[in-house]
């Protein structure tokens, strides 16, 4: 199993490097923008935004303090978009991507049980998501140093761990759809619907009144980054993502060993 885990990670080394550097750059760049927003010069522009668009920029009060700014501007809005793309590409590639290339058949021809294949690939997801989260945090740390600010390390630890949980949960959900169905269109569609649907629900629910009732359906509802940055961690949210991971894995465990593997 560790043989397969190593192979999976090795095959994705450039993916890991690219995404980690990309997310590190996102964290770094967004952090270095903080002084421009904290001085109050942009207050007028932000307050003049139509209410419908204010959901896209977050709570204006969060912009004044570095933890709030990072929570709302990096983790609350931008990171989930990129993390969703990462999750979709990773999970689709590990499941239907390999299956459509015929490589999954090569794997299941070996004396490696299908459940071990699931575990090895899922562990690869967990590790890759962790490295990407660390990359983001590292980029922010460098950014904080560059702008000469200080930031409580626990803020980044909490946000980093929650980001890891968020990306892992989303990737595991898509991974489960891919493993259970073997269908690329279904897997990709599921990932895109969850990611875009969640983003739209969470951002526009602040301004579109009827959406508020459905916001709990958003994947991002359970990732209140601004609150986490302020030190509030709701364990119910953690539990939600953990349950989602467990249920998704159970689905993959149940269906993958019982379905035909595509023969290319």
């Amino acid at each position, binding site marked *: 199993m560790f*043989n*397969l885990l190593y*192979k999976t990670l*090795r*095959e994705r080394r450039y993916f890991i490097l690219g995404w980690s550097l990309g997310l590190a750059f996102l964290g770094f760049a967004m952090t270095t923008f903080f002084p421009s927003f904290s001085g109050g010069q942009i207050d007028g522009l932000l307050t003049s935004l139509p209410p419908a668009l204010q959901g896209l920029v977050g709570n204006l009060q969060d912009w004044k303090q570095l933890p709030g700014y990072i929570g709302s501007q990096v983790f609350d809005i931008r990171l989930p978009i990129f993390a969703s793309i990462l999750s979709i590409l990773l999970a689709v590639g590990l499941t239907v991507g390999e299956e459509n*290339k*015929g*490589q999954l*058949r*090569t794997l*299941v*021809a*070996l*004396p*490696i*049980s*299908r*459940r*071990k294949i699931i575990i090895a690939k899922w562990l690869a997801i967990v590790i890759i998501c962790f490295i990407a989260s660390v990359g983001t945090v590292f980029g922010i740390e460098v950014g904080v140093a560059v702008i000469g600010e200080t930031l409580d390390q626990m803020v980044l630890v909490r946000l980093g761990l929650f980001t890891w949980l968020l990306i892992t949960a989303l990737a595991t959900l898509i991974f489960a759809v891919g493993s259970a169905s073997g269908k690329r269109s279904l897997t990709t569609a599921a990932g895109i619907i969850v990611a875009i649907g969640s983003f739209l629900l969470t951002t526009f629910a602040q301004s579109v009144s009827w959406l508020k009732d459905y916001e709990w359906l958003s994947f991002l509802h359970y990732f209140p980054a601004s609150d986490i940055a302020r030190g509030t961690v709701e364990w119910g949210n953690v539990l939600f993502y953990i349950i989602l991971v467990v249920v998704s894995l159970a689905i993959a465990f149940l269906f993958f*060993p*019982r*379905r*035909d*593997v595509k*023969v*290319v």
Partner: protein
Amino acid sequence: MLHQPVLEAKNLTKLYNGVAAVNAASFTIQPGEIVGFVGLNGAGKSTTINMLLGFLKPSHGEVILFGKHVSLSNAATSHQKIGFATGDMALFDDMTGRQYLHFIARAYKISTQTDTYQQLVEKFEPQLDKKINTLSRGNKQKIALIAAFMSDPELVILDEPSSGLDPLMQQHFLDLVRQQSEKGTTIFMSSHYLNEVIDVCSRILLIKNGKLVKDIPASELEIGAGKLVRVVTKAKVSPPTAAELIEYEKRSDSYVLQFLYKDKAIRLQAWLGTLPNLQDVTISDHSAEAAFEDLYAVQEVENV
């Protein structure tokens, strides 16, 4: 003493949208046999092999490997004793050949320092240090074949294994199959190359439209390669005894008789001498491929 069969397919059926890709195929393979599995494209060879290995779930019937029922979820257990390669095996492109074979060795919990591995590498001379995605099809195929045989498996299942190999490597492959057979390895292989099947196989299964239509000794296909005789006469004649009629056509002013002849030439000569108003005669070699076509024309299941 009766040996336990290595492989048993019982009433194996695979339906796609109600259409049978494989229809009630049943056969048994004994230890040490080399069985050729032949049929046209789309006949159901690969689907059968994919069910045998637990990639596809049979719609009906069952597969028994080494005495144990195989399902999709437990197939990996039997794979420890099985080597597998196809002509279009999807290897892991990002690895070099050496890395791929090391990965396979670790999956089988064996070393790459074995004599078997070294002999296979010497035989096929693969380009081990190039990335697989830069290799030609033939070179990829060499690596796939080494991977299939390197664990000294009890059963090797091959689906069009020599496609992509040059004639020299094809010969090396056939030598390897013979060597493995001498060691007692059971081999089940599908192939498009009939001469290859006749050359190494002891038994041949023919599949047509998903149904197993023949289960014969390979020698029967070899013997089937006799002489193809075509005579044109003015009067109606009957073919000689021991001839297999292929075609009889009545034309406006003549009769055309075509048959396969496997008996002694002198008897054919004698029969030709008896023909009244013989207008034309053609005698040609009946190739293994042609013999296969004749066998393939059989509709009823025989000896299955």
